[in-house]
């Protein structure tokens, strides 16, 4: 079992997402940066879609009540075990009563702590991903106790994770969205040339983009949306839907990010500037 001593910010259990209930309006959820979550599971010797702990900066502090292996991946966090610094992106052996401290992220947003055996919190509608109104808790809080699953025989990971730097520098690739062809050519052009800035109001549901010139698009009849859908509102607000996005929405869907670019965007902190680079099907 893992005891949460301090929850830090936005600390929750996530896995590969809640598949199969979007037609009932249930968001997909799952790790904001799926690639980093996969690497963390790989390093911990888990199936790649195992549940793990996701957090933002400043990170959480845990007390472990079980011998296990962990791996911390994602944004560039400070990691200490019993006050001694450890590297990210590597397997760390943990003994019963060890205290794991996650500090601040130098760059990036989301960190992942995978535990050998995986997190075994409640499964609701086929997933352990926390979501308000679906799981009994929306977040881990101080005093929360999280069970650990039964680990397979521990093995050294056979693949090394991709350096996290590359993730942060990778361009944000976007396909034209369903309403792209209805936009004026000026707006179409601007979407791929404007420098957008990530707003501090961003969260697991959506990242808000700030920019100087005014783009706009008419509202649409409510239609399906998904993580990575970029919406443009009549008042000029640019919104990138993220993992906890609704399943339908009424704003023009002007772009659709590639799956990898959703992971990359998730790691862009507030005030980071981005430009969308166009890809086509």
């Amino acid at each position, binding site marked *: 079992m893992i005891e949460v001593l301090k929850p830090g910010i936005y600390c929750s259990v996530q896995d590969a997402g809640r598949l199969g*209930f979007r*037609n009932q*309006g249930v968001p997909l959820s799952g790790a904001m940066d799926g690639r980093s979550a996969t690497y963390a599971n790989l390093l911990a010797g888990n199936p790649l879609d195992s549940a793990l702990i996701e957090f933002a900066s400043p990170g959480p502090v845990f007390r472990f009540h079980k011998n296990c292996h962990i791996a911390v991946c994602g944004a560039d966090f400070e990691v200490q075990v019993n006050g001694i610094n450890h590297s990210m992106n590597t397997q760390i052996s943990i003994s019963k009563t060890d205290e794991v401290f996650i500090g601040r992220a130098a760059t990036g947003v989301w960190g992942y702590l995978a535990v050998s055996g995986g997190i075994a919190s409640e499964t609701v509608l086929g997933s352990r991903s926390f979501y308000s*109104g679906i799981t009994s808790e929306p977040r881990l809080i101080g005093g929360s106790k999280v069970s650990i699953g039964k680990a397979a025989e521990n093995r050294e990971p056979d693949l090394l994770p991709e350096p996290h730097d590359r993730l942060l520098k990778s361009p944000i690739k976007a396909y034209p969205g369903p309403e792209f062809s209805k936009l004026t050519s000026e707006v179409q052009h601007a979407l791929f040339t404007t420098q957008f800035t990530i707003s501090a109001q961003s969260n697991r549901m959506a990242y808000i983009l700030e920019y100087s010139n005014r783009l706009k698009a008419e509202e649409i*009849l409510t*239609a399906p949306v*998904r993580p990575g859908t970029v919406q443009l509102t009549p008042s000029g607000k640019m919104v990138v839907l993220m993992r906890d996005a609704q399943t339908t929405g009424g704003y023009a869907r002007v772009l659709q990010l590639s799956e990898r670019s959703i992971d990359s965007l998730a790691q862009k902190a507030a005030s980071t500037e981005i430009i969308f680079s166009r890809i086509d*099907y």
Partner: protein
Amino acid sequence: MRGLNIRHFGENAVMIDWPEESGEVILQEILACEQFLRSRFKNDLIETVISYRAVVAYFKTNKKSAEIIDVLQRELTFNSVSLTETAIRIVPVCYDNEFGPDLDFLAAQCELSTSEVIELHTKPVYTVRFIGFLPGFPYLSRLDERLHTPRKSTPRRTVAAGSVAIGGAQTGIYTMDSPGGWHVLGRSPLEFFSPQNSPPSLFRPGDRLKFKAVSEEEYLQIEKELRTGKYNLEHIEND
């Protein structure tokens, strides 16, 4: 099939769009289209999401969207699913001020009395077009035109679970506490979504329902009966 637009919607998803919204005829086709997708792609299909005039099919990553689009352009065919077989379910709503904070405002906007608004809102048999916005939130068609009211310019921070509301030409039910921009007319004590239920959503597309005005006492009584498991959802058999 003619008139349908079949295209990519990001990676591993295909969107089928109908050219224009034309009411429940589309819903019948959309439900038939979903059946086609499920039987044609079986285990490669994760799920489908529908809205007024679109179906999005989400596929597992091993399946190439371009190939699926090819298959659909050649093979997609369906008739329509009949909607009239389902019983009409009764949704009790208390339209008192405490439960419907925007009822007076909406009545003034529509130049109607509050009792006329309640009468117009409880009269039609609504059809659930699709579920979206919140888990279990039903978008209903057939709202009386006299009640169409543009959404609020500033959304309310919290709309209570069970709130029955109007936004533009649409009416629906907030299934959980949430921020919301629709005008709240009243509240129903029913539980519209629970992850513990199977299926979790009380309604699904194609279901039919009617609102019934109840007093605060009746509202509280139903709430109590629901808690003790004694309440049975009222319905009218199909005529």
